């Protein structure tokens, strides 16, 4: 009897399968869970990873290649002196709570972000704004203190997405934006669910719903992808598994570039690393190739300065810090450290840091520098290293786009204080001539490479493992985002 029933059941199942509709839902695996859901008041990239472009949109937005495209602003006029931007908003845009988008929301968003008590993690993006006013319902005028060639780029960041005063109170738990998906639910520690916004102003999303599932452990991530519990995993955490996925016809592996300059950061205020000669010695002791191969299984592009190699203004400065342990020892001796020294090496969880750290430690030991390795969780790392500046060396990837400006902030965690560089950065922020801008950018890159502020390792590559039938995922990661608006299942 039982056998008969089973056969009948199996028969029914095989019969049903071909009739099933094309898939219209998607489960995306992510390693990090957002602490809350307000991209305009936290530094956590995990928030943008879920919400950018899906739920929240800005005046402008990043395309898959990092270009800046119109977002909620359909077009804009720039005054001749480059100080006044007049944004023309799209007609008929509504927030997910039904309220209409108007210029007042733009004024609210920008004023909130640049306020004295603003919690925005990237206040520098808004620092140049002198005033914001609504000319009419769909026109907003932003006046800058000085011309800023990067202003439209700034407005595309996840930190600059447009929020509404009506829904701001509860944004951290139930975000209300204008995007093609609206927020449905959040089971903390497990998943966030989005569903299609039927009233979207633009082309509607092709997926009915999307679930972001948080899997922090690389082994569990591997198992979840293999078992097809998740159908896409951007920033897949274990590069050593990629050949296996590539060999499996069920999966596709996309390897894209990111804005993540992965560096061995040095505490420029802590002796003996305050001595540029010692930092130079550290830089020459490092073999980038071995680190990329050993930690990332070959993924990544070597860099010689804090700048993305796919950017047109990038200059190859790796010759300033070639792998040369002999020179490194010599430099240490010249700096009066012939015996070497001991410092700390504090490592956050990603494998580029943990595995890279072990290799860095071995390479430094080779020239006489001993390191005490401490593995930290992200929260501890932010507390001890980023805010507390209690470290000698650390490895981290700076994933913000065009973030060379951090070197102009002497209070930033690696504490590089160079008036020359600060002057260059100030000049850049007011320069609008593209040619002069790129000249300044080259000078800035060269300056930090010559000062050996940090040891520059490689540009992080982002591997995305996905179901072979999934289309429309971003390969590159010009900003932290998982843009699902164009994602669909091939039938």
């Amino acid at each position, binding site marked *: 009897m039982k056998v008969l029933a089973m056969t009948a059941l199996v028969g029914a199942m095989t019969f049903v399968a071909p009739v099933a509709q094309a898939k219209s839902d998607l489960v995306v695996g992510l390693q990090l869970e957002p602490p809350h859901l307000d991209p305009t008041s936290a530094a956590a990239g995990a928030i943008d990873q879920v919400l950018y472009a899906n739920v929240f949109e800005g005046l402008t937005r990043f395309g898959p290649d990092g270009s800046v495209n119109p977002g909620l602003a359909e077009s804009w006029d720039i005054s001749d002196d480059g100080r006044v931007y007049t944004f023309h908003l799209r007609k008929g845009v509504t927030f997910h709570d039904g309220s209409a988008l108007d210029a007042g929301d733009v004024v609210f968003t920008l004023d909130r972000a640049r306020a004295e008590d603003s919690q925005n993690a990237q206040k520098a993006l808004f620092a140049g704004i002198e005033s914001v006013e609504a000319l009419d319902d769909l026109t907003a005028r932003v006046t800058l203190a000085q011309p800023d060639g990067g202003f439209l780029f700034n407005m595309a960041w996840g930190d600059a997405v447009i929020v509404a005063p009506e829904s701001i109170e509860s944004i951290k738990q139930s975000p209300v934006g204008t995007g093609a998906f609206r927020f449905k639910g959040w089971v903390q520690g497990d998943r966030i669910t989005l569903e299609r916004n039927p009233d979207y102003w633009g082309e509607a999303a092709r997926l009915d719903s999307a679930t972001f599932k948080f899997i922090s452990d690389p082994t569990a991530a591997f198992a979840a992808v293999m078992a097809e519990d998740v159908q896409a995993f951007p920033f897949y955490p274990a590069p050593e598994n990629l050949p296996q996925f590539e060999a499996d016809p069920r999966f596709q592996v996309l390897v894209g570039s990111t804005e993540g300059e992965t560096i061995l950061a040095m505490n420029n205020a802590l002796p003996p690393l305050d001595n540029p000669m010692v930092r130079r010695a550290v830089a020459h002791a490092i073999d980038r190739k071995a680190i990329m191969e*050993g930690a990332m299984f070959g993924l990544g592009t070597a860099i010689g300065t804090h700048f993305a190699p796919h950017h047109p203004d990038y200059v190859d400065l790796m010759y300033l810090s070639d792998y040369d342990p002999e020179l490194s020892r010599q430099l240490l001796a010249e700096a009066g450290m012939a015996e070497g020294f001991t410092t700390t090496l504090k490592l956050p969880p990603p494998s580029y840091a943990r595995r890279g750290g072990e*290799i860095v430690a071995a390479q430094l030991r080779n020239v006489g520098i001993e390191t005490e390795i401490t593995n930290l969780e992200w929260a501890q790392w932010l507390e001890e290293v980023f805010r507390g500046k209690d470290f000698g060396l650390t490895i981290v990837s700076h994933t913000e786009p065009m973030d060379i400006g951090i070197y102009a902030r002497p209070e930033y965690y690696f504490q590089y204080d160079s008036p020359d560089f600060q002057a260059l950065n100030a000049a850049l922020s007011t320069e609008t001539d593209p040619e002069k801008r790129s000249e300044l950018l080259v000078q800035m890159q060269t300056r930090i490479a010559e000062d050996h502020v940090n040891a520059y390792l490689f540009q992080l590559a982002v591997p995305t493992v996905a179901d072979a039938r999934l289309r429309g995922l971003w390969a590159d990661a010009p900003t932290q985002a998982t843009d699902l608006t164009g994602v669909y299942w091939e039938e």
Partner: protein
Amino acid sequence: MSRTGLILGAVLTLLFTGAAILSLVWVPYDIEAMRIAERMQPPGAAHPLGTDHFGRDILSMIMVGARTSIAVALVAVGIGMGLGVPLGLLAAARRGGWLDEIIMRGNDLIFAFPSLLIAVMITAVFGAGAVNAIIAIGIFNIPVFARLARGAALSLWTRDFVLAARVAGKGRLRISAEHILPNLANLLIVQGTIQFSLGILAEAGLSYVGLGAQPPIPSWGRMLADSQTMISMAPHMALFPGLAILLTVLGLNLMGDGLRDWLDPRLRRDAR
């Protein structure tokens, strides 16, 4: 029967202790040098147990890892025995008194927590590292030895030779040290062996979650953790450290059981 276990256990224990001692003077390859080009090689002539994801020789890593495991477990058991036994003897000597109560309830308090949980707590508070792992494992060994010592001492206190010593005017502490302790030696050796194996397991567990010895010091637990995501490509990376833990713990347990049978006069009489 028990002799076979004892001998097998002793051989396994000697093997790993020998490897650890040998690693002080010689290992096949330098475990700090990374040869990325030679990574994840399966066992072969050049590397009998293969290489790991940094191209380090796994045999060398296991030998040095044995040193870490044994050192951590040995010192931890030393702490447990060194503090636990005197506390237990003291409690037995003052049986029923307030001191006895305080000591034994204090022990119950530590005992009430799962041992590994205490270890995780201690390393979380004071930071990860071999020294803190030793302290953590040492602390949860204290009540084990304190209870054992007290229980055994209590029965000894009723024996005639102790009575004789009391009649001779010896103080309680002196009797504990001179008459009770020597009679506990067998028990302590047996328990020490068992605790030693648990210590090795605890060290491996702590290293596995990243709270034990920190890199570059090799540790069996961390070798397992490192090999986790590569298990389908290079199973030998997980197999050999796993076997090392298994065989060492098995060896120590067999030896502990064998020693108990061999040293305990009552059991020996029963066996005949």
